[in-house]
């Protein structure tokens, strides 16, 4: 119980601290900018990498995310919502790229031979994910890999919770079917 209370206090302090940095960043303070980048960059890059399956593209999207967030920071009404705002931008940018990729399907590079079971697994999973539409893919990755709750996914993707639930169901079913087909090949 004491542990829980302590955790709540720490979390509250962290939120207050973040609000202070966001305020300073809005005023153009570079130190605040550095602090906010340090706090969020690894998670943003990881999320983008899980969604896009491309390390370099993920870093590029992460940079775009921060730049857009800082450029439009004056639009943020509640400073407590900064992290949600940041991840929402990241998810939307990733979805835009995924839609573009699906519109221009790239040839699978067969010269990249799998080097082991985990690499082989990654290749198969990436190929299966490529066949899913952007919204299903994003929902699935955010739930299964990022372990987000339905509410968080709904907030990040800007859709109702019911839509997340139904998309997740469809995404899991389709993913299983496509994965079976890919493994059978």
């Amino acid at each position: 119980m004491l542990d829980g209370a302590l955790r709540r206090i720490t979390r509250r302090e962290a939120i207050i601290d973040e609000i202070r940095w966001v305020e300073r960043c809005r005023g153009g303070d570079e130190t605040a900018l550095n602090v906010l980048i340090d706090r969020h960059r690894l998670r943003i890059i990881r999320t983008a990498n899980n969604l896009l399956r491309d390390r370099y593209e993920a870093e590029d999207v992460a940079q775009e995310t921060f730049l857009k967030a800082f450029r439009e920071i004056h639009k943020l009404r509640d400073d407590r919502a900064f992290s949600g705002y940041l991840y929402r931008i990241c998810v939307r940018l990733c979805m835009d790229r995924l839609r573009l990729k699906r519109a221009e399907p790239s040839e699978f590079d067969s010269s990249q031979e799998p080097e082991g079971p985990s690499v082989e697994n990654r290749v198969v999973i990436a190929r299966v994910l490529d066949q899913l539409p952007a919204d299903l893919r994003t929902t699935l990755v955010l739930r299964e890999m990022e372990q987000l709750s339905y509410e968080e996914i709904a907030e990040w993707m800007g859709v109702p919770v019911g839509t997340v639930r139904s998309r997740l169901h469809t995404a899991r079913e389709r993913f299983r079917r496509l994965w079976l087909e890919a493994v059978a090949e």
Partner: protein
Amino acid sequence: MIFESQCQKTRRLIGESRDRELTSQESDFLEAHVGRCPECEKSRSLSALALSLLRDSAEPLDEPDRFKSQLVRRWRTQRVRGRFHFWSPIALGTAIGLGLMLAALQLIQQPLLPSVQPSGEARNDSSRLPEFPEIDGVSRTP
């Protein structure tokens, strides 16, 4: 038809069991159905395997090189550009000032250049024209 809808419900519960704890009623239904439906049983085990492989497929991330320095540089550039939008009064004022200065320079420089006289004035400048002999006291100057 009834069996098919039961299969659909089972598939939904298989998925939801990953996100929340099923009620005892739901759990009983799922186990009973999976026990007598080999397709759904297969679906449950394959779903679990496929999704665990998806989870394992996350690549380990190391600290990106120069990410922060690059980002801060881009942010500085963005700030500078943001200050000098083309509609900025300073930029507009500077542009108008420069334009006026250029126009003034043109006007000042014009008399200094070797003049190409306008046709009317050239006609009046009789000193440069060849002289013709006078016939009967009348000048034949054109």
